[in-house]
């Protein structure tokens, strides 16, 4: 090749336009950018691992079962809200003098009950009967806790994981659980309960006294919104201190009628007396037997079984229930009201969660759903009864001054056939239901 030959270089335009190069980053910004990217990636990896460990991708929430719904008017919620507001504004008229004299009489009863309780060997002078911790300590000093009615879990049960119901049945957390010690010290437990009942009532009465306004009325949210708390029971003890004529509308079988209606059971809910006759096979059951049978029936309607049923009945009767008798009674109820039993089974079947190759029952979710549903329906019953009472009263009268879950407190005198009218309104909302209304 000739060294003088000239070399030529040809430049071709590229086919693709090169992307514009990003503006050059400063050293600090570049480091920050890199760290953020790496961190985001690490978080993503971590989340993916956690998702895989928890059973793959997020599952959609299992829908809750749909139960029968009451037939309510389209403006029902507004009417109830307006009525509740009116009830709060009306207040309950209390006679201050009557309340005070009743309170003084009860205080004397409290001192007598205390004297009775302190005559028990296990209650010392240092024991404060108003404090659960003090009472439990006094009982434990006497060795009562070593003779619990509920058996301790065996070694094999502990290894297999103790039954949650059994564990709950062994717990003594408040005065409401003190009946579990009545196999060792039945008299002391009865005496403590007698004292507690009066004490709690007096605490409520004292607070009622402080809430009386200058117009002799008590205005409180407890008297509206279908309150179901223990306080309603405490308020009942002070009804004789009300000012003027009052009457009560009691919904006697709210829970029973709702469960029967939900389950499509066509028969009428049985009376506690009949249940006791059936349960104990006697012609004339005692009051304790009637209370036991009613508690058993209520516990069964609430879908309690085994230790949970034992606990429910024990809390109501404040005695140690015979577990074999409970089981026998439950089986009888299952046979007698087959549709309710099927309803309970079908409802429980909705609360099984797929776990690996099997399904597991979710008792907490089931209990929460059922209790919430029943509370909502019972509140609805109270609302319908209150609206019916208001509608069946003269225009210038405002009778309902308190609306609780299972009863209404009204001023004046009841109109004739009021209970039939309330029952008719309830039948319209809960078709083919069998609510029992009592005016007293």
């Amino acid at each position, binding site marked *: 090749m000739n060294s003088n030959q000239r070399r030529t270089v040809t430049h071709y335009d590229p086919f693709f336009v090169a992307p514009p190069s990003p503006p050059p980053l400063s050293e600090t910004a570049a480091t920050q950018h890199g760290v953020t990217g790496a961190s985001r990636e690490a978080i993503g990896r971590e989340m993916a691992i956690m998702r895989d460990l928890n059973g793959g991708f997020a599952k959609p929430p299992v829908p809750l079962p749909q139960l029968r719904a009451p037939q309510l008017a389209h403006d029902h919620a507004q009417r109830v809200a307006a009525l509740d507001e009116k009830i709060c504004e009306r207040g309950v008229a209390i006679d201050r003098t009557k309340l005070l004299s009743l*309170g003084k009489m009860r205080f004397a009863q409290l*001192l007598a009950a205390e004297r009775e309780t302190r*005559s028990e060997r296990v209650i010392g*002078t240092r024991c404060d009967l108003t404090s659960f911790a003090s009472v439990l300590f006094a009982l434990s000093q006497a060795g009562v806790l070593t003779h619990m009615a509920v058996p301790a879990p065996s070694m094999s049960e502990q290894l297999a994981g103790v039954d949650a119901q059994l564990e709950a049945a062994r717990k003594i957390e408040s005065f409401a659980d003190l009946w579990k010690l009545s196999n060792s010290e039945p008299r002391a437990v009865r005496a403590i309960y007698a004292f507690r009942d009066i004490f709690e009532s*007096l*605490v*409520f009465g004292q*607070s009622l006294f402080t*809430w009386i306004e200058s117009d002799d009325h008590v205005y409180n949210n*407890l008297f509206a919104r279908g309150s179901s708390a223990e306080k309603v029971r405490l308020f009942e003890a002070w009804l004789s201190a009300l000012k003027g004529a009052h009457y009560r509308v009691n919904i006697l079988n709210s829970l029973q009628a709702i469960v029967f209606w939900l389950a499509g059971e066509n028969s009428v809910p049985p009376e506690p007396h009949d249940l006791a006759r059936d349960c104990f096979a006697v012609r004339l059951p005692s009051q304790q037997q009637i209370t036991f049978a009613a508690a058993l029936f209520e516990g069964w309607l609430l879908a309690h079984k085994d230790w949970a049923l034992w606990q429910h009945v024990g809390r109501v009767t404040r005695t140690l229930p015979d577990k074999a008798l409970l089981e026998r009674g439950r089986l009888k109820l299952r046979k007698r009201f087959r549709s309710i039993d099927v309803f309970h089974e079908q409802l429980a079947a909705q609360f099984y969660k797929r776990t690996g190759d099997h399904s597991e029952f979710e008792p907490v979710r089931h209990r929460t759903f059922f209790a919430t549903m029943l509370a909502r329906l019972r509140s609805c019953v109270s609302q319908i009864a209150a609206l019916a009472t208001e509608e069946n009263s003269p225009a210038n009268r405002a009778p309902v001054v308190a609306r609780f879950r299972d009863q209404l407190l009204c001023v004046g005198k009841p109109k004739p056939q009021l209970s039939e009218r309330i029952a008719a309104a309830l039948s319209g909302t809960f078709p083919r239901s069998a609510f029992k209304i009592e005016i007293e």
Partner: protein
Amino acid sequence: MKTLVVIRALQIGECHFKHGEELPPHALPREAIELHIERKHLVEYDASERRSLHRLLHRFSDCSQAERLSSAELAAYALT
């Protein structure tokens, strides 16, 4: 605050007190209380150990002193 508890049968005026019962506050002057404590008729407990029923339910016991119920008790049994 102290709670006075009778630890022997005691008669004050027309009132009879049995073992373990609470003596109402102001039922006796302080000197008499001291005397009864010395004679082992009475014992004093701190309110944190045993509360006075007369002070807790002062509206109905006509006691001039008052003792507050716990917030848990008020929430459970009183109008709130």
